[in-house]
């Protein structure tokens, strides 16, 4: 700590800004004060036994000292604070601070809400040039990690509690020793990051300690984009895709909506190209080549399923066509053609698919993108880059950003070094969990257990990698850290803390600075130094603006304008790629993929993410061995829930082939919420794992896929496992993964076992059965005025009984009292959900959970269907069971004007207000659950237990049970003492309650709850507007002021909310579109939430061109598109070329029998 600096700081007048705990801790007056006030307090912070005292301590000393609560902008009030309220602090009023969540390859710019000194809600920073304020599910849920009671809370030596002072001594000792021998024997292992400050500190360190070795390892290889581009162009560059400018997109196993980094950017850009209205019916077209059925595949207009190992051969074929089609001379890419010919001979893929896809790309030269995914080898990436170069996309839809050169070693090198070298070695692990997730063949855990290795590990958890021989230093959460990062477009963003580190955690930057023996190791100063260096001056104003805005475009690297593809490299890499492997029943493939929820395992102890249903499988709390129906059939698996997954017998029969085989055995069980899945064993080389099988229609055959990050049992937390949430979930797929099979492995042997495991899926029935809940059309039909598909969404309404229009009041017997009230209401709230933009990414589900204090219920309760999510992401498969289409629909409270829930509640607990909100009054609810039964959308959720006040493994334990003790106390006694606390252990309770949104009631057991349109936000905006209006009558909230949590988080901008009585509001304009429809509108519930029908954009020349499968199913039920103004035109309304038999009988039945029976 630089003393002169701190004294100057304390001499400053005016508001001061919080910097870091160390800065203050270093201040002598602070230490003296702590010692004086809490002589033993300092010790208690790191002592696990009295860990539960921590929050008390925090509130007593840190909070009052103005540290914990100071956030970033509150003036320091060091002694007695709120007797005299600090300037600009209004109790109970939330503040927002710009920050960023660092990711492996960049960052997500954020605006974080802070209530009384604790961050409570993550939102995207919409000011950021490359953001609309959308985020992804992980960012939304990351706030829960901050309050994870199982995170590392102590400085531990050899897994035994120690103190911070001793840890700092140890770091200093390592630094001194390293300085002496110029870093000999010092190894550093870190993850990827794109942080200028970390890069700078690291460069300093390596300059000072040239013999130290830096290694990087990430289980999910997002760095491949950079590596491939760097190889291809011979410069350290990273591609950046402008999907919003692309008319045609080809993804080669690139799940840019799901598992790729920066999905929030890709989704926004992609959705931009899907937003259509009749005046602007242009739309992008997405081709997806993939093995798993991903969200990208679900959004695709054409999807080709091939094993992951065959993707690069498909790429080679398309590239060959593109090169040939464009007439590019062979000399431009010497030798490439031959390589492609030799490489692309892949069987099993319809050549027409390749041809037409290539043609389509060529017709959009310079306006298309080819992307390869992180699950693909460099060869595929090079082919994608080759195509982008050939198609002239570089600097149009693909830009190349210069990045710092990275010459780190791999984890393999590190293990070799640790095992081979003699002499003492010091290993510093910065974050991550390599003992758990390193390639299994390295036996990394054994390598660091060696006597000669001293390990210093900065870890967010005390987990598998907590050294048995060395130190574990608690890592600060990013909401507790100073730092910076570059977003994928190269814009710098600050990582600004929202609170002081809860457990004295340290950041990577600080640890590195200390190791490098720098004079100033405070991450705050380091970050500032980087900023000022980039700026070229020490302008405090610029710094403040940087923090305030949350980004700084100045200094962002401009895209490389002139680059040249090095054909030689492409040739070399592609040639050696495994081209012979033909996946089939004799050569099966296993894919290791990043889980859609817990990523590589980093969110394993995050209950929100564990319980978020996977967008495809709808599984919670577990991973599974995914496989296609055919593959499962070949293995002879029965009683497979995923098999049927709601495909009716008819659909199976129509699909033909092997389907008949599914019918023997107990297939009915698959529909009964049983989900007892057969366990299969996967053997790859000498390693085996086993996990429950789950069938995903539409996956490539002979491919098995295992999500990484589960099966954590070797933790070292105080509770004995990896954490109270993540313990015992799923199986560990890392055990099968070696350096040779980091992304996928070939020749995996699969065997059935007798065992079964019960899984928890939130959706038991996966098909829509021809119901017009989701309405889809094809773009060519949608825009063709003759087909009547322009208003296909309304045309799929159930026909009214004849003559109902002539009846008074439209045949409705009673006047809705809301109609009268509405005349005098200031607003009429409504929502519209654009199914064309929604990609099913789950961000809204998590945002809602965070905003509305939605509890998690645990696997056992999910099995019972009692999950509490206010947003249900419905997923439907339709069409051929082997290669179906997928559609998502978010289902929230529809705020029906004639709400069926309201008239059945005996105690008036759910009523309507004049603005059209269907209100749920928790404290009036007695819990008859009649409202839920009568809700046609089933969007109400019931608190079957005190989910907020009881541990999830304790739900069935009556509080009367005298054996039921927490913290050594009988629950009934606890309850009598403090009725708010329930039976949650005190350390959990103290932390978890900090994560709650204070504006939203935490519901108790026996109470119904549901989406409120974020009423707290509506009321907040209304109050603010009234304050602003003063005496004037201008109390109408301007359009766009209120964003519901789901709307705010949605990167696709698929959700619009506002005043539907305002003719200019966005929501009204959208609702006026012909695509607008009500789900189950025939019930006359008059939902305020409506949907815009989905338009697919398939290519007419493609072999798999057809009408949307859901539409075909609907027609197959004898339904008939009601064309307005085209009466009698039914014959060609959905065209015979659809391949669907449209019988006259069906049409007849539809017009006569389809009465609205109400």
């Amino acid at each position, binding site marked *: 700590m630089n003393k002169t600096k701190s004294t100057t700081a304390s001499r400053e007048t005016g508001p001061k800004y919080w910097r870091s705990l160390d800065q203050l801790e270093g201040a002598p007056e602070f230490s003296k004060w702590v010692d004086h006030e809490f002589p033993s307090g300092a010790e208690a912070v790191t002592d696990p036994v009295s860990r539960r005292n921590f929050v008390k301590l925090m509130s007593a000393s840190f909070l009052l000292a103005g540290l914990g609560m100071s956030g970033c902008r509150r003036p320091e009030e060091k002694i007695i604070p709120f007797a005299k309220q600090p300037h600009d602090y209004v109790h109970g009023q939330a503040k927002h601070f710009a920050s960023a969540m660092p990711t492996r390859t960049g960052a997500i710019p954020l605006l974080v809400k802070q209530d009384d000194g604790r961050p409570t809600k993550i939102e995207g920073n919409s000011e950021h040039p490359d953001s609309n304020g959308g985020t992804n599910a992980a960012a939304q849920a990351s706030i829960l990690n901050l309050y994870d009671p199982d995170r590392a809370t102590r400085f531990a030596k050899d897994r035994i509690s120690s103190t911070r002072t001793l840890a700092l001594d140890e770091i200093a000792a390592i630094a001194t020793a390293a300085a002496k021998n110029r870093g000999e024997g010092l190894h550093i292992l870190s993850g990827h990051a794109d942080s200028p400050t970390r890069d700078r500190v690291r460069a300093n360190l390596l300059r000072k300690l040239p013999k130290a070795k830096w290694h990087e390892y990430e289980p999910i290889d997002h760095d491949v984009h950079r590596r491939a581009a760097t190889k291809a162009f011979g410069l350290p560059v990273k591609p950046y895709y402008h999907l919003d400018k692309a008319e045609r997109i080809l993804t080669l196993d690139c799940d840019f909506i799901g598992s790729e980094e920066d999905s929030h950017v890709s989704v926004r850009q992609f959705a931009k190209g899907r937003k259509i209205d009749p005046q602007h019916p242009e739309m992008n077209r997405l081709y997806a080549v993939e093995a798993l059925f991903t969200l990208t595949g679900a959004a695709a207009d054409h999807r080709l399923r091939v094993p992951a190992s065959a993707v690069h051969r498909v790429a080679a074929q398309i590239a060959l066509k593109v090169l040939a089609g464009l007439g590019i001379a062979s000399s431009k890419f010497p030798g490439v053609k031959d390589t492609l010919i030799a490489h692309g001979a892949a069987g099993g893929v319809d050549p027409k698919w390749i041809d037409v896809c290539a043609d389509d790309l060529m017709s959009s030269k310079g306006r298309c993108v080819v992307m390869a995914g992180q699950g693909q080898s460099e060869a595929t990436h090079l082919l994608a880059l080759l195509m982008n170069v050939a198609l002239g996309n570089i600097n149009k839809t693909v830009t190349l950003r210069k990045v710092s050169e990275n010459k780190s070693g791999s984890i393999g090198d590190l293990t070799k070094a640790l095992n081979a070298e003699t002499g003492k070695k010091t290993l510093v692990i910065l974050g991550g969990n390599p003992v758990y997730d390193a390639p299994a063949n390295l036996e990394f855990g054994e390598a660091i257990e060696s006597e000669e290795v001293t390990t210093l590990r900065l870890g967010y958890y005390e987990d598998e990698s907590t050294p048995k021989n060395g130190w574990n230093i608690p890592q600060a959460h990013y909401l507790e850290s100073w730092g910076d990062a570059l977003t994928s477009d190269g814009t710098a963003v600050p990582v600004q803390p929202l609170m002081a580190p809860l457990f004295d955690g340290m950041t990577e930057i600080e640890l590195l600075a200390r190791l490098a023996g720098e004079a100033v190791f405070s991450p705050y100063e380091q970050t500032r130094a980087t900023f000022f260096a980039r700026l070229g001056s020490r302008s405090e104003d610029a710094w403040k603006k940087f923090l305030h805005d949350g980004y700084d475009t100045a200094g962002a690297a401009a895209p490389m304008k002139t680059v040249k593809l090095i054909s030689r490299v492409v040739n070399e890499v592609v040639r050696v790629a495994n081209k012979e492997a033909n996946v089939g029943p004799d050569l099966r493939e296993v894919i290791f993929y990043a889980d859609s929820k817990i990523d590589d395992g980093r969110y394993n102890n995050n209950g929100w993410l564990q319980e978020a249903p996977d967008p495809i499988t709808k599984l919670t709390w577990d991973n599974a061995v995914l496989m296609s129906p055919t593959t499962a059939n070949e293995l002879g698996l029965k009683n497979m829930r995923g098999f049927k997954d709601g495909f009716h017998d008819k659909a199976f029969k129509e699909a033909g082939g092997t389907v008949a085989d599914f019918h023997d055995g107990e297939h009915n069980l698959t529909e009964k919420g049983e989900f007892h899945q057969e366990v299969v064993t996967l053997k790859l080389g000498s390693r085996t794992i086993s996990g429950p099988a789950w069938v995903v229609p539409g996956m490539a055959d002979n491919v098995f896929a295992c999500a990484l990050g589960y099966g954590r049992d070797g933790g070292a937390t105080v509770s004995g496992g990896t954490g109270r949430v993540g313990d015992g979930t799923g199986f560990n797929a890392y055990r099968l993964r070696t350096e040779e099979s980091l992304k996928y492995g070939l020749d995996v042997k699969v065997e059935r076992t007798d065992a079964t495991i019960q899984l928890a899926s939130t959706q038991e029935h996966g098909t829509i*059965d021809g119901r017009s809940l989701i309405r889809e059309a094809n773009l060519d039909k949608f825009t063709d005025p003759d087909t009547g598909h322009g208003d296909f969404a309304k045309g799929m309404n159930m026909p009214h009984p004849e003559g109902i229009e002539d009846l008074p009041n439209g045949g409705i017997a009673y006047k809705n009292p809301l109609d009268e009230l509405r005349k005098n209401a200031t607003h009429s709230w409504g929502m519209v959900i654009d199914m064309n933009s929604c990609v099913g990414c789950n961000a809204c589900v998590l945002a809602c959970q965070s905003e509305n204090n939605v509890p998690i219920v645990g696997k056992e309760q999910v099995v019972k269907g009692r999950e509490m999510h206010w947003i249900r992401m419905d997923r439907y498969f339709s069409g051929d069971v082997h290669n179906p289409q997928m559609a998502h629909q978010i289902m929230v409270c529809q705020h029906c004007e004639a709400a069926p829930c309201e008239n059945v509640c005996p105690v*008036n607990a759910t009523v309507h207000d004049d603005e059209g909100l269907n209100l749920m009054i928790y404290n009036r609810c007695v819990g*008859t659950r009649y409202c839920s039964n009568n809700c046609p959308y089933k969007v109400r959720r019931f608190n079957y237990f005190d989910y907020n006040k009881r541990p999830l493994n304790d739900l069935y334990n009556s509080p*009367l049970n005298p054996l039921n003790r927490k913290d050594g106390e009988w629950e009934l006694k606890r309850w009598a003492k403090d009725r708010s606390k329930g039976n949650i252990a005190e350390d959990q309770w103290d932390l978890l309650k900090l994560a709650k949104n204070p504006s939203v009631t935490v519901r108790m057991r026996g109470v119904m709850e549901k989406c409120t349109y974020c009423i707290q936000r509506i009321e907040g905006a209304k109050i603010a507007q009234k304050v602003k209006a003063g005496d004037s009558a201008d109390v109408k909230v301007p359009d766009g002021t209120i964003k519901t949590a789901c709307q705010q988080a949605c990167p696709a901008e698929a959700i619009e909310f506002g005043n539907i009585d305002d003719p200019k509001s966005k929501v009204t304009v959208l609702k006026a579109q012909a695509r607008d429809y009500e789900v189950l509108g025939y019930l006359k519930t008059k939902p305020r939430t409506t949907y815009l029908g989905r338009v697919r954009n398939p290519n007419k020349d493609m072999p798999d061109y057809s009408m949307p499968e859901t539409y075909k199913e609907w027609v197959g039920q004898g339904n008939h598109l009601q064309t307005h103004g085209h009466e009698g035109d039914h014959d060609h309304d959905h065209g015979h070329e659809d391949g669907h038999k449209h019988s006259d009988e069906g049409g007849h039945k539809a017009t006569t029998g389809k*009465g609205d029976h109400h």
Partner: protein
Amino acid sequence: MSEAAPNIKLEAPPIELERDRFVANNLGMGEISDQICDVIERPTPLWWKICMVPALLLLSMLGCMIIYLLTTGVGVWGNQHPVMWGWAIINFVWWIGIGHAGTLISAILFLLRQKWRTSINRAAEAMTIFAVMCAGIYPLIHVGRIWYGWWLFPIPNANGIWPQFRSPLMWDVFAVSTYFTVSVLFWYMGLIPDLAVMRDRCKKFFGKFAYGLFALGWSGSNRHWRNYEKAYLILAGLSTPLVLSVHSIVSLDFAVSNLPGWHTTIFPPYFVAGAVFSGFGMVLTLLIPLRTVCKLEEIITIRHIELCCKVTLTTGSIVGYAYFMEVFIAWYSGSSYESYAFWNRAFGPYWWGYWAMISCNVVIPQLFWFKFFRTNLKWVFVLSILVNVGMWFERFVIVVTTLAREFIPANWGYFKPSPIDILTYLGTFGLFFTMFLLFLRFLPMIAISEVKGVVPQADPHHPLGGAKPGGHH
């Protein structure tokens, strides 16, 4: 009475013209009293003790289950999303249905002058009251926050909370509580003359005092009888519409909703028919063993059993017709949601429930067309139990299959009861049988005075009866 033998000899009517008497073997008035009171007056029989033990055990289990439920949460049941009503509501409707026969027998059959009711009405009414008690527990404990259950009653309070009268659950509250109150009054009213008989026969002080207290000073005077008969008639008149209304209103819990399979206008009459059907089933189940163990074969005769069987056959057929109409209307409506709901009932994952319902409620009662089955006690006993099994499945089918799969396939689910559901249900049998056994032991299970009124001896025009000059009862 009987020693004054008649000296006029009339020719007896041909035997084939005379129906079986309601009391067999020409029991005299005193014999009737003796037979019925004997059940109470003799030392506690072994069978009673044997039955009481499991009944009490089940009753205490019910208490434990309710305490566990209330302290822990509704989640201990198998309820789930989307089937938010499970066994609680099934059993509520089932018990309420059983509670129909008693008042029907005592009120409607009384108004219709069906004299055969007298032998069975007392026990049937008791059964009704206890069944309604069992039923009434469920709506109370099934709510999420029972401590606020009083909000369902219109009690003025400072919170300004007032019930919402558009909700069928509110109608339930009033329908069931009114039905229970009137049933208890009616039952008690009928008991008064018999309580006086018990008072007069009782030799122990405490018993005499207790019977006397409840007999309200009944002396059997002409004036008492006149008032009694009027009051009884009025209560019968009051009860009659209640018999029809209570299950109609319970059915509105379903019919008022908008779910396919619930939203049906046929529900009220169909529920009433089903309730009478199940009530008679339960009456038969109880009386067949009772008439043997209590040695009352002469008062509860085969003819009574046969008549009950005929009612069962009739109402069972009405229910069968309703099932058919439901399916027909679902098809005729043309609504795919409606037709799917009924297809799903028959062929969906709960097909077994539907077919159990159809066979027990529609097919099996058709055996009662044959006299053999109506008069063979073993058969009647088995069939009467099947009737109630079938009616339980009817409620299961209505509640569960509808909720499990309605409009949006993504939220379809599969309901399974938890052990607590099952044990609570068994516990209600404990309550029912405990109450019923106590009733058998302490109150005359057959209306003594009414039975006496239908024997030939009470008929002045009958050779065996009539007022004798200077005679006395």
